[in-house]
């Protein structure tokens, strides 16, 4: 249903011909090499696009916050100030690279890289469309959670290695917050795993449909709550307001990246924005139907049959529609995240842990139990199926 990029390309004759040609030229079976090349190319493109998206994220944040605060925001560099992020990047690269004297230099260098590695590694499993998924792992979401926790280590190391008390406190807060909020996030993802019967994003998205009533968020009451648990946990994991305690400027100057300057600081910021995008994508894929388009337009069969287009073009049009659906949902969530940041005040540091362990975790566990019972009782059908069955059977007798 949801092949990775290589499997998708293998459907087309042109690709097969290319492989055959390369094999002839090189004299040995080039399938593996081509697979590697395709994967590498895809990854390269995705990573760069994502870096661009992260840069645009900063622009979006400034523009939206300006809108909320009745300001103009960046409007000098480029049309509507769109190129502001490039200007910022150039500024960062040009800046003096400062090492604190007492810093642990190895770790000080390593921390931003670790953060970026953790975030970019997650991109391998993000389902942009049914064809544009770098690796459709069986343990996709599990892998994503594992790799993204590298960001926690990076935050911690960044805070530690700078050898400053603000950085130290910020790093401690960030790491503890990230590993704490992994618990409710993982548990609410587990409910989706239970319903879809698999851990890969392919099975997540494949179990849903294009219309909102086919999405997992409206599958049953527990997933509806679970989505909000996931969303709040996601905010905390990415250190976004109102959970931005690790970089609370009123208390800790700038938290774990207080001592960072130049592009190291830029890497941290980039990692943060990309991570927000990735987790918004995960939320969209797990709860909001992912790349599914209504009326099954996404697989392109309709264009081939009704409009008479060639299959290759129909399929690619479908892919574009899917990518558009995914990006629409993800960017909507991205907008909500920014919206929340400029709307809610920051909460206290003890309240962060209270919300996690006393409210979200019990709620997530309750959801897990509830979804388990729901799946067992109604054989995995959604609440709409159950209601429809009850209405059609007339007696209200429920399933079986």
């Amino acid at each position, binding site marked *: 249903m949801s092949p990775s990029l290589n499997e998708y390309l293998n459907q087309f004759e042109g690709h097969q011909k290319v492989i055959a040609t390369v094999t002839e030229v090189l004299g040995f079976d080039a399938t*593996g*090499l081509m*697979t*590697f090349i395709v994967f590498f190319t895809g990854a390269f493109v995705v990573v760069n696009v994502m870096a661009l998206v992260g840069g645009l994220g900063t622009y979006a944040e400034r523009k939206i916050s300006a809108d909320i605060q009745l300001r103009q925001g960046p409007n000098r560099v480029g049309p509507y100030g769109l190129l502001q992020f490039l200007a910022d990047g150039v500024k960062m690269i040009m800046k003096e690279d400062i090492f604190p004297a*007492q810093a*642990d230099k*190895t*770790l000080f260098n*390593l921390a931003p890289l670790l953060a970026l590695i953790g975030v970019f590694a997650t991109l391998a499993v993000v389902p942009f469309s049914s064809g544009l998924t770098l690796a459709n*792992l*069986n*343990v996709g979401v*599990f*892998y994503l*959670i*594992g*790799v993204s*926790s*590298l960001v*926690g*280590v990076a935050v*911690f*190391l960044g805070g*530690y*290695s700078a*050898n400053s008390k603000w950085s*130290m406190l910020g790093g*401690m807060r960030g*790491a*503890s917050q990230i*590993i704490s909020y*992994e618990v409710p996030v993982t548990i609410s993802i587990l409910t989706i795993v239970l319903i879809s019967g*698999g*851990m890969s994003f392919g099975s997540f998205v494949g179990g849903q449909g294009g219309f909102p009533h086919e999405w997992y968020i409206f599958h049953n009451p527990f997933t509806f709550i679970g989505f909000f648990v996931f969303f709040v946990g996601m905010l905390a994991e990415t250190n976004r307001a109102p959970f931005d305690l690790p970089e609370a400027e009123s208390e800790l100057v700038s938290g774990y990246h207080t001592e960072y300057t130049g592009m190291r600081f830029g890497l941290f910021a980039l990692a943060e924005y990309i991570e927000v995008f990735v987790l918004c994508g995960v939320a969209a894929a797990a709860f909001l139907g992912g790349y599914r388009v209504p009326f099954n337009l996404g697989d392109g069969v309709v264009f081939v049959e009704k409009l008479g287009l060639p299959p290759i073009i129909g399929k690619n049009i479908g892919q574009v529609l899917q990518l558009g659906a995914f990006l629409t949902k993800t960017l909507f969530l991205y907008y909500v995240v920014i919206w929340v940041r400029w709307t809610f005040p920051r909460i206290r540091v003890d309240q962060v842990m209270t919300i996690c362990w006393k409210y979200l975790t019990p709620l997530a566990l309750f959801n897990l139990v509830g979804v388990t019972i729901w799946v067992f009782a109604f054989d995995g059908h959604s609440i709409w199926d159950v209601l429809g069955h009850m209405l059609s059977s007339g007696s209200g007798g429920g399933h079986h």
Partner: protein
Amino acid sequence: MFENTLFFLSATLTIVGAAGVVFSKNLMHACVLLLGSLFGIAGLYATIGADFLAASQLVIYAGGVVILMLFAVMLTGGSADSSNKFGIEKIPGMGSTKTYVIAGFSVLVISFTILKLMANFMKSYKAGELPAFSSTVEEIGTLLVTDHVLAFEISSILLLGALVGAAVIARPRKG
């Protein structure tokens, strides 16, 4: 080809990390190197088709154990005789020449022992035809709740006990 590349990368990461854990004089560095070694092991799991194991390794070690270790280093770093409050330079007890000599001797002894055992096994081992990779997630899940359900439940009780026990032990007490 592709798998071989992954294997060599992972093996290198693992062994270099482990060696770093042994020889690093800075505990923080040792922890980060351990993280690298564990990532390498996750990659090794991936090369033998154990995708679930690999993901578990990532989640549990990278997300949990190593951060826990870092926290522990942080919370215990500032010993009384340390000049640096945050314990970067003067983390005590990282070993001396004497202990390394003893360790080296012990390692030699145990290496020979293991090699003796392994030699017998490897002589009789015949490499067979390896099956293709398949998803292990569903099979592991099935095994966990059928054949190994007792071990599964016991390990869940163990985790609960560890959770409560760790919280109780580490709680600061008055007096």
